[in-house]
């Protein structure tokens, strides 16, 4: 409790947390028979007219309460870098990138495409500038979309870590670290399955203080077994077990470790951490709702849906 920043925003967020779905609500949704029934359950929790919570809406609310909070911007870096990939690829393919963009984002999407097309990289946020130029040059030189994606993804992780270090927030540093670790494990697994070359793996893996880049590259060159045995020797042994089981379980594990981090902010009365945690909670809730909706439409059984549910914040 060393700072009393964002007392207003945190208190408002605490009141809003009452509208987040609980475990009980999720069980009701899983047991529901029709879409209409599900909509009624959500409406009864959030109040009439509030059924359609969107991440953009959550973001706008957070920014309205804490407009100067730089820590929160890090939460959208992945979307920003995704949008960069979308703009670059659309430019090469001669398409409009609009439908490929992910929102919310820190970028001004109205002018983003024209900025990228005209190569006015100076107009981009600093963390995106060099990556945009490098990715464009790599893409036009090699026409290898996968390699360019890897470059952008790695740059994204590095930008997150750098921005988190700059804010000095332990929460954001840990967030950036976990996102990097999860992304690196996933990339290493895919590379080992696809028997990718060392040069590609080195571009694709970012590395972190907890999972050393060189060790991870070496492990993925040794196939999935080599990767699993390396992960088991680290503090991410759970991840190896999940990956060995199924990539879907690993995805859930990745989301859950982020939620575990968010939970550490539940007891905070001030600061940016509870705001970031609320955003993470809203992200997880929307993911759960999407999973329920898709699974219900495809007739998946209740046990499977329950198994896929991400950890909740409330």
């Amino acid at each position: 409790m060393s700072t009393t920043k964002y007392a207003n925003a945190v208190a408002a967020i605490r009141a809003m947390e009452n509208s987040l779905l609980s475990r009980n609500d999720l069980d009701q949704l899983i047991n529901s028979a029709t879409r209409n029934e599900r909509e009624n359950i959500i409406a009864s929790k959030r109040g009439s007219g509030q059924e359609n919570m969107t991440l953009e809406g959550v973001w706008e609310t957070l920014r309205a309460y804490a407009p100067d909070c730089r820590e929160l911007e890090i939460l959208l870096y992945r979307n920003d870098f995704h949008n960069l990939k979308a703009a670059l690829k659309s430019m090469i393919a001669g398409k409009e990138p609009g439908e490929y963009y992910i929102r919310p984002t820190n970028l001004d999407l109205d002018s983003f495409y024209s900025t990228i097309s005209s190569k006015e990289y100076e107009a981009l946020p600093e963390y995106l500038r060099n990556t945009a130029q490098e990715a464009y040059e790599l893409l036009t030189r090699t026409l290898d979309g996968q390699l360019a994606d890897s470059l952008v993804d790695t740059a994204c992780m590095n930008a997150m870590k750098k921005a988190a270090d700059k804010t000095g927030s332990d929460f954001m540093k840990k967030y950036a670290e976990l996102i990097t670790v999860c992304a690196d494990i996933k990339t290493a697994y895919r590379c080992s399955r696809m028997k990718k070359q060392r040069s590609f793996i080195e571009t694709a893996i970012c590395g972190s203080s907890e999972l050393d880049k060189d060790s991870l590259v070496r492990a993925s060159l040794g196939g999935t077994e080599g990767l699993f045995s390396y992960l088991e020797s680290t503090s991410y042994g759970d991840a190896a077990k999940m990956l060995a089981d199924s990539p879907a379980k690993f995805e859930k594990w990745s989301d859950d470790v982020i939620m575990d981090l968010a939970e550490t902010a539940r007891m905070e009365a001030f600061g940016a951490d509870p705001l970031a945690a609320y955003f993470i909670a809203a992200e997880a809730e929307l993911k759960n709702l999407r999973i329920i909706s898709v699974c219900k439409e495809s007739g998946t059984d209740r046990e499977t849906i329950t198994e896929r549910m991400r950890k909740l914040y409330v």
Partner: protein
Amino acid sequence: MTNGLVLAILGAALAALLAGIGSAKGVGLVGEAAAGVVSVDPSKFSKVLILQLLPGTQGLYGLLTAILMLSRIGVIGGSAAELTAAQGWSFFIAALPIAVVGLISAIFQGKTAAAGVGITAKKPEHNGKGIIMSAMVETYAILALLVSILLIYNINI
């Protein structure tokens, strides 16, 4: 006006000033948090208002101390006493407990009460616990007020 009287008046001013600043900061902080909750759920206004009032008491204690001192040295009433430097310093020192403890405790009480606003936001039925936790900080302001009053009434004029 003697130097002693100036010191005693300075002490009275400090008691009102520092405790008042502490209260203003504390009440302001809780007010920020309370406004956040009310902006989402206006029905919680009365509950968060109680929490907001709590850090305001230190300012009142400072005011009470200042009035008692000014009354004791005769400034209130129009016949100011001719105080020696030693007497002036004694009054000045008598004002310090509530001035300093009032300032610090009001700020800390504000932080505790603002955290209590979070309890009210999430679990309104546990509002009382937030009030009790904030009221605990009040103890030290009351003790400081008591010491200041005892000192003021035991200085020989």
